[in-house]
């Protein structure tokens, strides 16, 4: 196992410029991954540097904990964020996380990192107003760390193995928490078999994000029908390799969530309502089948702030949403 070479620089500016020159950043400045900081991150996660977090066989890539730690430092993470970054890397590098396809695709798919459990509040992961955007260190740097691993370790470099026609700003960083405190809804990680007190990360590779606005409906069914219309306008093809386990993530916004809570709808109720309607045969080019194998494949997440009557649809690329515990 190789260890990262050490380089000496006269100044921070010289280091950053050299990193830009070598193509080791996402186009933004980075924090220097000093050996001391990398060691502190590894210690925080209880990992040795040569621990393998995952592989990308098509690319002959093996990602070690040391490599992930260096990129987490560069992304601006604090040491205590690193176990969460490790879980995100492990999730994305699962075979059906499909790193090679989702980071090389012409479509410019992005990775959503969804955080559940106590670690959200311990790290200050935003799950309310503005949670998709800038202003929150944990969100910004954990999502960025995964993307830097994809770039610097998994070789997802634009013009090389990243062949996106446009790419997307979500590829700088896309990380948010589920607002578990908003209701008694079962959190995503619990739906996926983990204990409520277990922190976890779900990584979902998305082909595109679609905002499903609905300022008119005043009840749960009306909101669900809007979700169906918006998903079916795009369609989801399904994939033989993914089988019946495919996913779509629906981030239910505050103003829509209210109607579900008022009417006592659980996540399972929403899944049962949506599933047959999504899987119904196409009727036109703008009303297409959204092929999801099971109701449980529709992943419902509460997040976002008050105001907009909107939810967000994270439509899948060729991968499963993978949930990994934070250990």
């Amino acid at each position, binding site marked *: 196992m190789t260890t990262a070479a050490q380089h000496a620089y006269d100044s921070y500016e010289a280091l950053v410029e050299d990193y830009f020159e070598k193509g080791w950043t996402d186009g933004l400045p980075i924090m220097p991954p000093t050996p001391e900081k990398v060691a502190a991150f590894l210690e925080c996660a209880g990992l040795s540097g040569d621990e393998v977090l995952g592989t990308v066989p098509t690319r002959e890539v093996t990602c070690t904990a040391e490599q992930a730690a260096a990129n987490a430092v560069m992304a601006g993470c604090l040491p205590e964020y690193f176990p969460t970054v490790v879980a995100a890397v492990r999730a994305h590098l699962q075979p059906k996380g499909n790193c090679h396809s989702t980071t090389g695709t012409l479509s410019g798919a992005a990775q959503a990192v969804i955080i559940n459990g106590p670690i959200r509040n311990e790290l200050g992961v935003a799950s309310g107003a503005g949670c998709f955007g800038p202003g929150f260190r944990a969100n910004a740097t954990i999502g960025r760390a995964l993307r830097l691993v994809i770039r610097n370790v998994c070789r997802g470099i634009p013009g090389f193995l990243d062949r996106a026609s446009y790419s997307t700003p979500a590829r700088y960083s896309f990380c948010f928490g589920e607002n578990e405190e908003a209701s008694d809804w079962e959190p995503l990680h619990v739906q996926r078999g983990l204990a409520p007190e277990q922190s976890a990360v779900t990584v979902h590779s998305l082909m595109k994000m679609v905002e499903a606005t609905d*300022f*008119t409906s*005043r009840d749960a069914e009306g909101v669900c029908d809007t979700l169906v219309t918006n998903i079916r306008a795009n369609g989801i093809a399904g994939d033989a390799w993914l089988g019946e386990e495919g996913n779509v993530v629906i981030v239910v916004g505050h*103003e829509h969530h*209210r109607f579900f809570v008022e009417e006592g709808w659980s996540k399972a109720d929403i899944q049962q309502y949506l599933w047959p309607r999504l899987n119904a045969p196409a009727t036109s080019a703008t009303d297409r089948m959204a092929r999801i194998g099971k109701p449980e494949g529709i992943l419902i997440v509460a997040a976002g702030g*008050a*105001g*907009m*009557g909107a939810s967000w649809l994270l439509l899948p690329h060729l991968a499963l949403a993978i949930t990994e515990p934070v250990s």
Partner: protein
Amino acid sequence: MELEWAGVPSIAIVHEEMRGSAQAIARVSGCPDYEFLTVDYPWVPIAIWSKEECLELAEIMAPKVLTALTGQS
């Protein structure tokens, strides 16, 4: 506030969920104690309202506006 500064008696109506941003604007405008009326749920902050919903809300808010502007209930 700009209407007030122009000499036009006025009162702003904001949604309860927007109270924080309204207070922030009042603060940066140098009027931290500026008072405004609020609307709460079941009226949502942004909506396409029916005529009936508009009338119902107006009936609730109009007396409050009158009181705020004139001091008379």
